[in-house]
């Protein structure tokens, strides 16, 4: 999966050393909470779109503002916003 961050897939930080398999790919996170949030977000995108896999995710934002994202799968593209708390998605909105 292509990502816009080089550090932690969710927050771009480079502290910590936590790895989890996401969409078949061993992915770096700073901590388990970022990994939970990212994994839950990916699953939510797949549920909302019906996609079988996601090719890319790009994220802008942070914990308090929430995050504006773009995900793609083949020729399909979705823009959405989400927030999480302790890794659990508390707000998710597909933008029209």
């Amino acid at each position: 999966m292509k990502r816009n961050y080089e550090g932690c897939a969710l927050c771009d930080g480079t502290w910590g050393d936590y790895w989890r398999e996401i969409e078949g790919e061993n992915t770096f996170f700073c901590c388990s909470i970022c990994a939970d949030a990212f994994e839950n977000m990916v699953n939510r995108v797949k549920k909302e779109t019906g996609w079988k896999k996601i090719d890319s995710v790009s994220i802008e934002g942070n914990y308090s503002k929430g995050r504006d994202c773009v995900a793609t799968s083949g020729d399909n593209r979705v823009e959405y916003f989400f927030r999480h708390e302790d890794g659990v998605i508390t707000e998710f909105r597909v933008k029209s």
Partner: protein
Amino acid sequence: MNLCPVCGEKFLDDEISTISSHFYSIALSSDPTHIMWLNRNISKTKMQQYALNDKFTEFYDFSKEGLAMWIKKRFVARFFNDDPNVFVIDMQQPSEYTIMGYVTEHYHFLKQWVKSCAYILGRTDFSEIQKYEFDNISEEYFGKDGQPAHVDLLLQMGESVGLKKVEVISSVPLEKTVRALRYWDHVCSSEHWLDAMVSIHSLELIADKNVKDYGAKYAYFKPEILNDGITKEAVQFLKAGYEADQYHSGDALKLIEKYARLLKMEREVQSYFLRSMDFFYGYLEARHERGKMYEEKL
């Protein structure tokens, strides 16, 4: 001594290297809370231990402006920056639900507040501290010089937007409020009175009308709403906090600065302040959550 502003672990000395190496080793083990703190306060980019130590030295340095101003600036950076606390955003255009959430959670806050002040009063021998806390208790909870107590103004503000006093009094505070109140109860009843003092009185900066002088992008509320926009009772409550400058953070921070120097407790006072601020951050989120709950219910 010093303590970790995240997990509260106590250190016997107040060397910067002790606290920075604590963070360094815990970050290596991917601990979420310490990493989030580093991301927010120091840097999102991992660095060598010596470089992290330099950053911590810089972060804790108050030699240029003094301890009180250091506290003010750190507080403003946490609550009134480009990315303010969600309740600060709510307060820019408060709805009746914002006010309701405010009243309910803050009622519980004030109940703890008066106890916290009383603990400090009882645990110090300095009479100017006792006088300060005595005045604060009177003003917040019992009314002073014929003025209504802030807690009564708060409940009246609730009534003015349709929130019954009995509903507020019988409510159970939300989890983040409970967590914060429990922390302040512990600090004020068990830790040094000066650590207690900075833990609670620094929080009054939230309603300080001078925050823009310390770099704030936002104020707690726009002064215009005191002229129109919300109910008369809400104006009265907000005004009481806004105009009671002399008892608010300014005086407390001067006392804290003075006694921290006298008692050689400056470093730990800084850390207690930082730790308390994070509980307060969660508490303000609880006010927002409670407002949302009222909105969904009505």
